[in-house]
């Protein structure tokens, strides 16, 4: 049976709301869980982060989850989450409130970037779990979606009456649809789409290497159909990660936790990594 306590952590951006989940026999290690920028809250879609925090605590490792500044119950203001401006200070502030001598940090997407930045500044961190860590890459969301479409599905999708109406009246859509079908048929010579790539802070290889050198375990977790996995493959094709980095691939699409199955698989994967790091 775990105990949960809600509290606020002082930070430069305002008080951050956090929940500490403590197991029956707390040790001197704990895990800080950082959600994605999708909802900004410490519960995330369908309370997936709350369930993860409780299940990890059930195994004997205390957890802290928190709301980013400007979201949920936390104070401060926020316009939007940007992958080139991770909230490293939020993670550092919350980590400072945890009653433990060594810490594991886990983060999802935007949270993974923030956790990675914080881990470097926190010598007490001995394990980081980075779920759907975004890497800088020219691959866009649209590219990624088109790559996952089969030709017949692409044709079925673009020939729906509502879509056809829009394709006829919107030049950008017309270009994208034609380019997508061409690529699927192998007729396109080069990448036809010129949408801007996401701006992502490049904390990748140098930061991960620094953490490994000081003995911190680094785990990467991706859904095999996630955009973040595509950008990881693209990035590491020319900048390989050190071989000590463990990469776990979850079948399907886990980004945004948009299915109950993806939520379950991600929680199980994190539980496995936590147990292995003990």
């Amino acid at each position: 049976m775990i105990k949960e306590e809600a509290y606020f952590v002082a930070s430069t951006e305002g008080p951050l709301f956090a929940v500490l989940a403590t197991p029956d026999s707390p040790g001197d290690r704990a895990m800080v869980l950082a959600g994605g920028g999708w909802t900004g809250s410490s519960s995330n879609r369908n309370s997936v982060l709350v369930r993860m925090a409780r299940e990890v605590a059930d195994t004997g490792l205390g957890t802290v989850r928190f709301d980013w500044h400007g979201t949920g119950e936390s104070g401060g203001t926020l316009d939007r989450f940007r992958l080139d401006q991770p909230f490293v200070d939020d993670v550092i502030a919350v980590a400072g409130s945890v009653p433990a001598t060594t810490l594991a940090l886990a983060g999802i997407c935007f949270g993974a970037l923030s956790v990675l930045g914080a881990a470097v500044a926190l010598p007490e961190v001995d394990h980081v779990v980075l779920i759907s860590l975004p890497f800088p890459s020219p691959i866009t969301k649209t590219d990624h979606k088109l790559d996952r479409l089969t030709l017949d599905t692409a044709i079925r999708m673009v020939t729906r009456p509502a879509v056809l109406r829009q394709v006829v009246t919107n030049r950008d859509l017309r270009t994208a649809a034609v380019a997508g079908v061409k690529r699927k048929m192998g007729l396109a010579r080069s990448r036809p789409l010129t949408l801007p790539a996401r701006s992502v802070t490049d904390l990748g290889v140098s930061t991960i290497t620094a953490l490994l050198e000081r003995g911190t375990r680094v785990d990467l977790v991706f859904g095999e159909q996630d955009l973040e996995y595509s950008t990881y493959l693209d990035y590491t094709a020319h900048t390989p990660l050190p071989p000590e980095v463990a990469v776990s691939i979850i079948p399907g699409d886990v980004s945004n936790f948009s299915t109950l199955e993806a939520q379950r698989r991600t929680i199980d994967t994190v539980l496995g990594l936590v147990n292995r790091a003990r």
Partner: protein
Amino acid sequence: MTPVVVTPGTAVEIAFTVTSRGRVFVVRTFPMGDVSGRLVVCAPFGAEAARNYQREVHLGRRLAADGFETIRFHYRGAGQSDPSPDGGIDAMIEDAATTVDGLTPLPTFWLGTRLGGVVAAAVSPPSDALMIWDPVIDVEGYFREILRARVFSAFKHAKPDAAPRSDLVTDLVRLRRIDLLGYEVNALLYEQTRRLEGTQPLSAPDRKIALIDLNRRGEPREETLGLASALEAAGCRVRTESVEFREPWWYGARAGSAASTNDPTARLLDLSRQVILEWAEPTR
């Protein structure tokens, strides 16, 4: 938990309220000075709750500056609360009742959004004023609307074969539970809500009710106007409003907290605050 000042002049107190069947997460936002009234917020369901969350937080913080405390809570099965015992709306109604049980007497106003409006209507005493954002009037229509996201999701994930073949609501009743973009929709939720349809004790002589539609047209729906007429005929004092909203309830998320004055959220919050202050005027 010791109250914490989150914005100047406004404190927040958070607790897990223990019930016989799990804990309910409750947040109380209140002014540092005297408290003259209370708003109880019943959140919508599923992805809609995430979409609406910051609006509810900000309304609470703004009302604190006007001398009101705001009580918000997470239904079991959502947010920080424990899992739902069965995924039905009866448990959500029980959570609302548990949350307000034992509170000190104060002039109380209720806010429910979407399915949360059904919860607020079921729990609030007829003497309390009630505001509903985007009221659910046709229960079957509401479920059909939210389940339609499954069809879009099937195409989005390039799995058109996963789209339901039969009527969406029939499918839910047959399968008993459906994974709707990562949220479980339980057939019990539909069946229990259907049972409540048309039986809720909304109307009472002189009861103050505000129905605020949120839609693309920025005009009240026919069915909202119909409900307003029926309530007025029963002696309620009904105000019908609308705010133009283009955000879908089930797609995307709203994380940001800054609302410009032209933002629909800012207009909704201004309107809601104004209605509550007008309602509260005779009691202050």
